[in-house]
């Protein structure tokens, strides 16, 4: 994928919308990975997904995937603490989605990790 392709995919051109709710799975027992499917107007593209990783031992430092394709710059700051307030991860996810022009679908349901 070229930078121009990626730029188009992360722009309003892609008409990206989330499909269904967030699904959390446990990796390596302390790591929770949330995945949301994303549909786009690009029909040849395999189903896309938003991925969020939360290490329960460092809850105030959530991460994205390892794709490294895109660095967010408008994510709400989280105070460095052993606990995070409910709603924090949802706010981060929605800010990230908005930055990438991914609309939240009508059937979206949120679950805390």
């Amino acid at each position, binding site marked *: 994928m070229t930078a121009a392709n990626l730029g188009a995919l992360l722009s309003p051109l892609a008409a990206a919308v989330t499909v269904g709710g967030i699904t959390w*799975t446990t990796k*390596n027992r*302390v790591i929770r990975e949330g995945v949301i*499917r994303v549909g786009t107007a690009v029909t040849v593209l395999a189903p896309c*997904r938003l991925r969020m990783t939360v*290490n329960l*031992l*460092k809850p105030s430092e959530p991460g994205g995937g390892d794709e490294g394709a895109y660095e967010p710059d408008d994510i709400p700051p989280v105070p*460095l603490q052993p606990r995070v307030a409910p709603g924090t991860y949802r706010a981060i996810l929605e800010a990230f989605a908005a930055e990438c022009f991914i609309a939240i679908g009508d059937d979206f349901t949120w679950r805390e990790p």
Partner: protein
Amino acid sequence: MIVDAATVIGAVLRAMNDDTVVHPYGDGLLVDLPLTYGDGDGVRVLVEPMGTGYRITDRAAAATLLTMAGVNLVAGRAAEAFAEIMAGGGLNGVNAAPGEIATFGAAEELGRLILDVAQASLRTDQLRWLAPRQAGMRFVDRVADRVTVWAGRSRELQRDAPMPLASGRTRPVTLRVTNDGKAAYVQAVSLRDPDQAAEHCYHVFGLSKIAKESRVAALDGSAQDWSPAIVAELRTVSDVEFFDDPLSLERQLDKVVPPPQAALRP
């Protein structure tokens, strides 16, 4: 220019001193060290008072990076290497969660302990080179996507769903599909480590108490990719479908969990 010991040692200590930053965190302190993981993230360890000494942990930071890189630290070569790193580093792993690099020691040892944990965490991070070169999409995700498309809105899906065993225990399988009191359990069997994946599938399905036709082993690739003996073994405990067949998985699921009757009408 003359190199003397005091100058060099002083330079090292100055660099450490100038680039080490701490942040209050719960009962302890987070220590940012002038060291970085392979992806450029800084090494940050947590120091907490415990009894008469301190507990130092990387809070599974390296394990998280590995998980994101697609390396499984629970089994195989990476798990062996991780155990070796912990033992070789003299870390006692007090109260450590899986993947967490932690140690406990006396206050006089604190500096050494922090460096030991940081070093072990950095070594663990390098296991990222065990990740497949093109990780691509994992087989479990491909199975989940395909079944999600098949299920539409009329059938319920659960990832990592608990499957009841004859013993009364439950074990997670890749997916459960339910509708109207009927359920199918799908286990994705990847080609990445085929023997281990097949054995795991055989084990959980063999112990299951649900009807055999409701257990579906979804094997990556086609029949040619698998040893006929392994496939025959799996068929003794479950239905077997190959992912390269464009319809067979859906057909079997339709048999076990039919769509609601209304959906069949035009």
